[in-house]
Each structure stands twice: as structure tokens, then as C-alpha cells.
């Protein structure tokens, strides 16, 4: 019974207290909510500036989405004070300020989405670069060990020849890998925008790309390795140097196109200096490979028995060939006979079997000769052929034809004679 009475009294107390608590808390809340016009516009400006600052600092789309929600809430909360804020924000208006904020939030969202996509691309590339780096290192090691083995080799000539062949194959694979790297880097980086690269840097996300997959570091390594390889290369032929030169041209082309972007992403400290260092290394690589290419080309023509004046660049090379062919054609027109034919055969064989069969793609890619120049040489060679080859060949054809005709005529005569005698 006492318990029952107690429970009733507790209920009564609660019945009186709860509404009282609710009422007092509401009054407190009401009292806190009273704001003067001054406070309203100050609060609006404060919230607006906070959102503005958060937009500037936002580094991912999730944050921007939250900000967009805050913008909507801000607009909703202050729409009733539109007229007051129009005065406070003069010459701007509440609507124009909100529109500006929305526009900037949307722009930030789009930009960050682009950056995030680019981050993914860069991460893919970073993995690729790491993979290329590993494979290139393996090939470098293999090439170095083969070169050392060749230098120290006391083995038979047959074994040495095998080593040289493997060495050259290894170099070829290495060059293919570099070209593959160039293609991959070009495709990925050409799609990236420098502006967003700077944003990436601002967002301090750059650090993750400075690990093993640093494309800039790899480019520098490739340039340095190639300079070293060209200087220490053994038993390399004109075809090898032409291929290396073609690779160097592709590499330089890539650097000219996307070097700035790569520097923007990967370079630390003095970016200008980093760019200059790589440009210098690539220029040195070009100088070394070009020099070796021309020396080896001169040697190849010499060893083929084609006596040409020395040439040391694309222009003099073409002029030399053009002069040689022009003079040869003139000589063949004058009918120098056997000598012209011998020279023609030497040159034609070398041109067809070595230059056209083995070197053509590299000659074009390395800018040694252009397609038009190659076509002109082919045309000159055809003219030389028609002059140099003796008429005797035609005479033989005529004689053969005459002989066949004579045999046919004799056959007919014999057939008729036999027929006449039977009759």
C-alpha cells in the first residue's frame, strides 16, 4: 500500500517536473536564439567564410559533398533574412553570394574528381614504371655481364660469336623495353593536365609518387645508362647504333612533350635545375649515339666495298649518296661496261640486303634519311640498273626467240615434206 502511494507521488512529481523541464529548456533555447540584425549578418558572414575556407582546403570529393550540403543548409536558414543580407552584403546580394558559393563548390568537386582520376592514372603509371625499372635493371645486368664475359673471354671463336649474338639481342630487348616505357608514359601523361598537377602538389599528395615508381628518376637513369652503354659498347654494328639512335629520338620526343609535366609531379627542390639536368643528359646521349651511328655507317659502306667520301650527318650522308649515284649513272651512260656493273651490284646488294632489309625503320625514325630521300635513291638506283646492265641480255633474248622461230619453221617444213612424199 505504501509502495502504491509512493508510486503515485513519484508519478505526480514527474507529471509536474517533465513539462516544467521541457518548458524551461524551450525558453532557454528561445532566449539563446534571439539575434539582432547585426548578429544575423555577422553569423551569416562567418559561416559563409568558413565554408569558403573549407572549399579552398578541400582535398577530396567527399569533403566537397559535405560542403555542398552545408551550402544548402546555409541558404535555407538565411532565406528569411534575404533583405537584411542584401543590405549587409551590398554591392553583392544574398542570392549572388549563394550562387557564387554553389558554383565554386561544384567547380571544386569537378576539379577534385579529375584529380582523383588522375591520381589513379598516376598510380597505375607508378606501378608500370616500377615494373619497367625492374625489367630494365635485369636487362642491364644481363648486358653488363655479357659484355664483361666477352672482354675476358678466352673461349673459342664460336662461343664468343654466340656471346656477341646474345649481347646484341639483349641490347635489342632493352631498347624495345625503353620504347614501350616511352609509349606508356606518353599515353598516360599527355592526358594529364598541368593545372591539376599543381593542385595535386598543393594537396600534398605528391609524396606517394616519389617512391620507387618515380618516372623522372627512371628517365635520368635510362639516359645515364645509355651514355655509359654507348661508350663501353663492344662489337656493335651500324644496325645497333641506328636502333639506339631511333630509341633516343623517341625518348627525346617524349621528354620534349611531357617533360614539364613530369618535372611538375616528381621533381623535388629546384624544378628548373632538375629539368636542365635531364635535358643535358638526353642531349649528351644524343651526341654520343649520333657520333657512333655515323662512324659505324661510314665503316659499313667501306666494308661493303662502296667507296664514299666521309659523312657525319643526315645532310652530308644524303648528299654523298646522291652524288655517288649521280656520278655512277653518268659513268654507266658513257658505257664504262664491267666496272659500272660491278659497282652497281655491290651497291645494289648492300642497299637491298642491308639498308632496306635491316635498317629502314631505324633510318627513318632516327632521321638519318627521310622516306622521300629513300625513294629518290631507289629511283636513282633503278636508272643506274638500266644503264649498267649490258645489252647482251637483250641480244640473248632475241637469239633465243629467233632460234625458237627457226625450229618451228624447220618443223613445219619437215612436216610438209613428209606429207608431200606420202602423197
Amino acid at each position, binding site marked *: 500500500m505504501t509502495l502504491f502511494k509512493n508510486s503515485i507521488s513519484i508519478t505526480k512529481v514527474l507529471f509536474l517536473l517533465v513539462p516544467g523541464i521541457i518548458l524551461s529548456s524551450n525558453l532557454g533555447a*528561445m*532566449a539563446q*536564439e*534571439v*539575434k*539582432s*540584425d*547585426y*548578429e544575423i*549578418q555577422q553569423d551569416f558572414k562567418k559561416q559563409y567564410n568558413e565554408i569558403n575556407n573549407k572549399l579552398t582546403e578541400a582535398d577530396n570529393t567527399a569533403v566537397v559533398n559535405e560542403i555542398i550540403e552545408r551550402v544548402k543548409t546555409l541558404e535555407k536558414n538565411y532565406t528569411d533574412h534575404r533583405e*537584411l543580407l542584401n*543590405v*549587409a552584403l551590398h554591392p553583392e546580394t544574398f542570392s549572388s553570394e549563394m550562387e557564387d558559393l554553389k558554383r565554386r563548390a561544384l567547380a571544386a568537386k569537378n576539379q577534385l574528381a579529375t584529380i582523383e582520376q588522375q591520381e589513379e592514372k598516376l598510380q597505375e603509371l607508378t606501378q608500370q614504371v616500377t615494373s619497367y625499372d625492374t625489367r630494365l635493371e635485369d636487362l642491364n645486368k644481363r648486358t653488363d655481364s655479357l659484355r664483361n664475359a666477352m672482354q675476358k673471354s678466352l673461349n673459342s671463336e664460336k662461343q664468343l660469336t654466340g656471346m656477341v649474338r646474345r649481347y646484341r639481342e639483349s641490347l635489342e630487348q632493352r631498347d624495345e623495353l625503353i620504347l614501350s616505357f616511352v609509349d606508356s608514359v606518353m599515353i598516360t601523361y599527355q592526358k594529364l593536365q598541368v593545372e591539376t598537377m599543381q593542385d595535386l602538389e598543393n594537396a600534398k599528395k605528391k609524396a606517394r609518387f616519389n617512391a620507387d615508381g618515380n618516372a623522372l628518376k627512371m628517365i635520368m637513369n635510362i639516359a645515364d645508362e645509355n651514355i655509359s652503354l654507348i661508350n663501353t659498347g663492344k662489337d656493335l654494328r651500324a644496325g645497333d647504333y641506328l636502333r639506339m639512335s631511333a630509341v633516343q629520338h623517341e625518348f627525346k620526343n617524349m621528354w620534349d612533350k611531357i617533360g614539364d609535366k613530369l618535372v611538375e609531379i616528381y621533381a623535388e627542390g629546384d624544378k628548373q635545375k632538375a629539368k636542365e639536368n635531364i635535358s643535358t643528359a638526353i642531349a649528351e646521349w644524343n651526341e654520343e649515339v649520333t657520333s657512333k651511328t655515323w662512324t659505324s655507317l661510314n665503316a659499313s659502306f667501306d666494308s661493303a666495298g662502296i667507296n664514299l667520301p666521309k659523312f657525319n650527318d643526315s645532310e652530308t650522308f644524303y648528299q654523298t649518296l646522291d652524288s655517288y649515284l649521280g656520278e655512277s649513272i653518268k659513268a654507266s651512260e658513257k658505257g664504262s661496261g664491267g666496272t659500272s656493273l660491278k659497282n652497281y651490284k655491290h651497291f645494289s646488294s648492300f642497299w637491298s640486303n642491308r639498308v632496306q632489309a635491316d635498317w629502314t625503320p631505324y633510318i627513318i625514325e632516327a632521321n638519318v634519311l627521310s622516306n622521300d630521300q629513300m625513294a629518290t635513291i631507289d629511283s636513282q638506283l633503278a636508272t643506274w640498273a638500266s644503264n649498267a646492265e649490258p645489252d647482251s641480255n637483250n641480244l640473248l633474248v632475241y637469239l633465243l626467240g629467233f632460234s625458237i622461230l627457226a625450229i618451228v619453221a624447220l618443223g613445219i617444213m619437215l612436216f610438209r615434206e613428209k606429207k608431200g612424199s606420202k602423197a
Partner: protein
Amino acid sequence: MMRLSKFLKTLLLICVSVFMGCSQALVISEVDYSQPIESVLQTNEKGMVNDVKSGLSFNILPLQYVETQDTSSVTTEEVRMIRGKEGYYYITSPGYQNVFVMAPEKGTLKLENRILIKEGGMSKPAFNQRNPYVQLLNRETGENYTLTAKGIQQPDENNNSEKGGS
């Protein structure tokens, strides 16, 4: 002769009218001075306040003296001020019992009216422009007063200098 005399009189009248017209002060009527949002000003160590937006600056100590009878130190830290439609400045401060209605004059602000709001003063006063009135708001409690230069405007009264609230 009579005609000449009439003509001269008329001419004189015109001249006098033109002269009177020229000497009259140029007046623009129906000017609305109302400031849309109050100014919240901080005092310096000398009691000076400066409203950067309007360019108005003055010393608060005379008003502080009325409130506290003490000008030995600056005890007024924040001044709330708004200009009404008629051009009067309404000035008060946290803790002040009065709103001072000041008329701008040559190099001075002259007391037009002192409106007693609350014994003991308001802790968080603020002005809102509610044309043609000025609203005094107690931000702490939410109570508000409709003011004119003549006093507190009661709902059914035109003028009143007595304390009141709504």
C-alpha cells in the same frame, strides 16, 4: 504716368521676389537617414569610438558619466549605435540603463532625449532598424522596445518617454 508707376511697382516686386528666392537656403526634404544595420564599436583606452563605415568618431565618456557618474577610467567596452530615420543617433552599451538619442550638430552630438529602458541596464542590448522606428532588443531575454526619438513607442500610444516593453 500711372502706367509707368504700375510698371515700376511690378518690376520692383519681381526683383524682390527673385532676390528673396536666391537668398533662401537649399533644402532637400524627405531625407531618410536610417542606418540598416547597427554599428558595434569598441572603445579605446581614451573612450573614443570610431565607426569606420560612416566615418563618425566621438568620445563615450560623457554618456558613461551619465550612467555611472564616473569617468576616472573607461568602463564602457562596447558601444551599440544606430541612426534613425530622422537622423538621430541612438546610442547605448551593455549595462547602460538608457538609450541616448543624440542629434548631430556642427562638431557635436547634442542630447535630444534620454530614454530610460531598465533599471540596472541590459546585459546584451542591440538595435535593429524597423522603419520608421528603431528597435532595441535584449539579446539575452528576447524582450524588445520600439523606440522613437521621443521615447518608447507603446502599441497604442504615439509618444511615451516612460519605460515600457513589448
